[in-house]
């Protein structure tokens, strides 16, 4: 635990209203090539019953953030700084025993690949019952009843028979449903879904997304939904956080971020994906270059080597100074508010139609 360099031990939630509050989170991994700054100063809040979408490309730090919230990093290899407060409880300095009481109970996770996340050695029913028995002190019988209730809820046919099946006997979509049932067993307040539909086919994805949304209304959990697909996020999220190179570059309500984005990276993401109703004669506008290495991130704004609007900013501001991300609806970019608005209306919006 020596690597945990948090100074103040007392939980000091910056925002008392938020259910989950992450402040200036930094996660670093030591590797042979140097230190990887996987998450570099990330802050966000999440309220009960709301869904926060986190979008970003691979390596932008979205999964690392959420594994940190669950306390799943080995402190031997990861250096974690900052503050994560869940319902008044500080998680970074929390002991493993306390985290154990929270995981699967107050906070639960849905992983991307259900085949590797479920144990092949135990039946689906046993894997579902275990957290319920551990956290709620329920008997085997009660846990089985609850598990069958949940399997029914997520739409597994013949739940009583399927309770005794092993994960390999389930199809891909059914496994993901079983994962959702497992995550919801103890009625968690916080549900983290890490690319839950990326491995699924579109028709199954549509079923699972609608199911998650309907279940959220019933259970009232807060959801952190991680994906790289802007289409999926527009179906799920209330608020949106766009991540790039371990940092949040844009934040705001989903409708505002996707409807009137303010960061050149968000513009790039939106104009590089074709839509079902877009003009076929219009070529896609990709973001040039590739995502930066986190071993040696670019100076200043991490997006500046790929940014098409760097020349609009005077001097060497982009290469020297890291733009701050303000509170509330904000974008971490040196362009002025008027510039962002004119560029979006004149150059970006025509591409999106």
């Amino acid at each position, binding site marked *: 635990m020596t690597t945990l360099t948090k100074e103040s031990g007392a939980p000091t939630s910056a925002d008392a209203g938020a259910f989950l509050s992450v402040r200036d989170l930094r996660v670093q991994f030591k590797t042979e090539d140097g230190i990887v700054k996987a998450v570099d100063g990330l802050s966000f809040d999440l309220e009960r019953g709301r869904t926060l979408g986190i979008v970003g*490309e*691979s390596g932008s730090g979205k999964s690392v953030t959420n594994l940190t919230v669950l306390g799943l990093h080995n402190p031997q290899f990861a250096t974690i700084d900052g503050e994560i407060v869940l319902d008044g409880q500080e998680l970074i300095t929390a002991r493993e025993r306390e985290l154990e009481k929270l995981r699967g109970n107050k906070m639960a996770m849905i992983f991307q690949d259900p085949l590797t996340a479920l144990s092949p050695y135990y039946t689906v029913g046993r894997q579902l019952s275990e957290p319920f028995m551990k956290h709620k002190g329920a008997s085997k019988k009660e846990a089985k009843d609850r598990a069958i209730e949940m399997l*029914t*809820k*997520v*739409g*597994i*046919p013949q739940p009583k028979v399927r309770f005794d099946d092993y994960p390999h006997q389930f*199809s*891909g*979509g*059914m496994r993901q*449903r079983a994962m959702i049932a497992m995550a919801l067993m103890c009625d968690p307040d916080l549900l983290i879904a890490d690319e839950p539909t990326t491995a699924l*086919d*579109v*028709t*199954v*994805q*549509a*079923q699972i*997304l*609608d*199911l998650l949304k*309907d*279940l959220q*209304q*019933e259970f009232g959990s807060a959801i952190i939904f991680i994906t*790289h*697909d*802007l*289409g*999926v996020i*527009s*179906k799920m999220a209330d608020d949106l956080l766009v991540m790039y190179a371990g940092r949040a570059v844009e934040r705001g309500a*989903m*409708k505002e971020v*996707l*409807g009137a984005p303010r960061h050149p990276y968000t513009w*790039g*993401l*939106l104009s*590089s*994906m*074709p*839509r*079902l*109703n*877009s003009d*076929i*004669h219009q*070529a*896609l*506008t*990709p*973001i*040039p270059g*590739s*995502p930066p290495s986190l071993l040696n991130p670019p100076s200043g704004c991490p997006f500046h080597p790929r940014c098409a609007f760097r020349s609009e900013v005077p001097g060497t501001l982009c290469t020297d100074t890291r733009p701050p991300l303000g509170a509330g609806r904000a974008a971490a970019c040196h362009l002025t508010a008027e510039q962002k608005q004119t560029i979006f209306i004149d150059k970006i919006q025509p591409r999106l139609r």
Partner: protein
Amino acid sequence: MSDNLTLPAQQGSADASSPSPETLLTVEGLTKHFPIYGGFPIRRKVGAVQAVDGVDLSVGVGESVGLVGESGCGKSTTGRLITRLLEPTAGRITYAGQDITHATRRQLAPVRSEIQMIFQDPYSSLNPRQTVGTIIKSPMEVNGIEPAGGREKKVRELLELVGLNPEHYNRFPHEFSGGQRQRIGVARALALNPKLIIADEPVSALDVSIQAQVVNLLQKVQDELGIAFVFIAHDLAIVRHFSQRIAVMYLGKVVEVGDRDSIYNRPRHPYTHALLSAVPEVEIDAEEDSRERIRLSGDVPSPIHPPSGCRFRTRCWKAQDKCATEEPPLVQISGNRGGHLTACHFPEDPTTEDRGEDIVLDPALAALEDDAAK
């Protein structure tokens, strides 16, 4: 390669509504059954995975045909059958008038150089022990082709064409990012001046911002060199962007085929409707979404024991007794444009607009939505 680049684009407008007059590749009744062996002590054939079961397809010169469907529908197997990486169980593949269904290695040699493939995973499809130069050069060596100015010059031209630095000739694949590797794969496919490229999910493994780079590159290659494409992908928006004609596959069969406008705006097969409705589109306002909402139940059935009759009937909301007994033929339904074929007994209306009532077949979803409505 540079002189080839000045060739006029063979495909005039990108929106050709009918197949090109000149057909490059014809596939009829193409079938591939993978045998399943089992039993003890003597292993026998106990069944077959009917991966592809009677697919008809044609690709015109310089045309891009999209092949869409969910995983396990046989789209990749179809691609591999066309390139003859797999031996067809039945059916007929005709390339430029020549029957290549069961052609021998020697007969195939001249054709092989004209049909090339781009693979999905840029990490496993490039030999990590060879330099980029060797990788792109080897198709020319195998076929004994000596371009003017030497192979190395040609490789450098190809690298430049796909947007890589020609000085990277002696680098190894691990020195490149995913998008750059896929460009190397494209350069290798172009090395023999092919007439047809089978692109099997060429952008699925790439990040969103990189996908557009590779799609634009492929489009440039297609426009400038007049190469025909069979573009296999599960992303319907990208297929629409890239292909003039699209075939929708389900469980080893083509259920609907037609030009871009017919498939995306006037689909008739219920599966095409469901597939289009399931695509998550960026819609800022839920009310703005005027598309119909169809939620199927369950997953695709196993291709080992596919349903009788129409294979989609187990997940279809219009299925009747006829669907179980009679297999619908792939025909032009009245009201469809020429070349738009649908295999369905009870086709849907040719629109993707909201029909006022959602179709929710998933029992759990339907139950939750009933509760919410009450």
